[in-house]
């Protein structure tokens, strides 16, 4: 299968610290590729560079055969590369449906239109409501995004990314801060998205990672030390030493 995303020799330094230290990574079309690693390994820094909110110092990011290393975030989104944020980033004062309608609007034609009232564009809001259903927020469409429960906010975060109709979805710790029940719900949701887009999933919750991922890459100190099927990663000696710890896999 073809690689949808290819990262080659990516480097990002902050002062003396190489947060990304020559990363090579490829994400194959239609897989869920998990990226794991201890705190401070540089996972979020890597996601920022793939999404376009941080510029790498060296290396290349190739998305669907095109080098996107120098492109801005919104251009990448237009090409089908969307992200969700580790710290939820919503339009907190606006309703759920308005949140989603923004994302729909971004994708459907130019917004340099100055006369017609956007509130009259039924299509925007119809699609926003459909999206709300898909992320289990159908009964919350008129609620203020900031007033949603944390789990609901996480799902809206996914909805915003989905609304851009991504081909590759970057999920940065979608389970962070969720209780067991909400986590389960989110895993089910992500699993259901499998048919819609390829995903690169950064996550600390190993249960979820091993339930969802087709392949796993392990990032330690800015380098990928292993990539493979979940079972291979579990068994990988270097991974166990560097990251999972000796006792982490006992119940695995």
């Amino acid at each position: 299968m073809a690689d949808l995303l290819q990262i080659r020799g990516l480097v990002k330094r902050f002062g003396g610290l190489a947060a990304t230290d020559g990363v090579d990574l490829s994400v194959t079309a239609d897989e869920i590729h998990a990226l794991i690693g201890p705190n401070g390994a540089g996972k979020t820094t890597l996601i920022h560079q793939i999404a376009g909110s941080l510029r790498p110092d060296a290396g290349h990011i190739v998305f669907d055969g095109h080098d996107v290393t120098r492109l801005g975030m919104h251009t990448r989104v237009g090409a089908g590369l969307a992200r969700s944020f580790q710290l939820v980033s919503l339009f907190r004062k606006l309703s759920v449906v308005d949140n989603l309608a923004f994302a729909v609007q971004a994708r459907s034609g130019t917004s340099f239109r100055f006369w017609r009232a956007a509130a009259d564009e039924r299509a925007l809001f119809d699609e926003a409501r459909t999206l709300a259903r898909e992320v289990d927020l159908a009964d919350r469409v008129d609620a203020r995004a900031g007033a949603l429960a944390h789990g609901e906010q996480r799902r809206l975060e996914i909805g915003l990314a989905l609304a851009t109709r991504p081909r590759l979805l970057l999920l940065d710790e979608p389970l962070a801060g969720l209780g067991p029940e909400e986590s389960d719900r989110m895993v089910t949701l992500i699993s259901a998205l499998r048919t819609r887009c390829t995903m690169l999933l950064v996550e600390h919750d190993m249960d979820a990672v091993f339930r969802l991922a087709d392949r796993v890459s392990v990032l330690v100190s800015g380098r990928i030390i292993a990539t493979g099927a979940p079972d291979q990663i579990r068994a990988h000696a270097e991974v166990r030493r560097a990251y999972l710890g000796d006792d982490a896999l006992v119940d695995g």
Partner: protein
Amino acid sequence: MAIALHQRVRPAIVVPVLAVLSALPLFTQWIDEPFYLVLASRVLLFALAATSLNLLVGFGGMVSFGHAAFFGAGAYVVAIAAMEGVTSAWIAWPLAMGVSALAAAVIGAISLRTRGVYFIMITLAFAQMMFYVFVSLKAYGGEDGLSLPRRSVIGLGLDLKSDTTFYYVVLTVCAVVIALLWRLVNSRFGRVLQGIRENETRMEAVGFPVYRHKLVAFVVAGAVAGLAGALAANQNDMASPSMLHWNQSGMLLVMVILGGTGTFLGPALGATVMLLLEETLAEFTLHWQFVMGGILLAVVLLLPGGLATLLQRRRNDG
């Protein structure tokens, strides 16, 4: 409650206001106080300038502290054009808008790369630069300003030397342009602006070219301020550097905040209240700014949403 992006402008407010404004010349004639009509023209053109600034501050989340630069540029374009013999309003006023738009494009292109307090400072710095440019341009009057040899010529049998005619022209221009801005705020473009105000990073992450939208808004606001400046040059029969001074930018910001940044017509209300207060207070005391300061403080502390929320609250109670 979630805030609404679509700005309603209630006919119950707009229709009576327009009716009163249309009948105002009859009233000032009747009480034989033509000066009030001059004051009303001034209020209107500042309402236009404040509404244009609110497009940036209230809807785009861009606190520009240099809006007077575009207002003053528009005034100077009209004065300089008149000096060079171009007095037709049909040429001079669009030209004023064009030049102000161009200035806004240049200043915006640079300033909009910064945010927050840096943006405030850099817009202020640009405006002060333009202020000193006009102060030092001796050919155009230097610090004394440049007087208009005559007011702009509209034709159609309208003579702007008449205060009544001038008032009606200002009223028409302001009403039409404010209506256009209202359409803009509720359009797709206006919606994007409001999204940028709420969460800029998120807008970028759902795929909007944020910088481009901000720049276009900056240029539109600059052009409208230029038009207001063109009207002001006609009203004062001159353009002066003080129109570009940071004091003027501050006044415009105060009008916006006093009236209510989150509301579409608030800044027009703010301009009205501010100029009327200035006029009445100055009659009683030389230190009117002191009293004005107190009133501003009270509004900001007691009505954080501005005077416009007063009207909304009343409506809710009723």
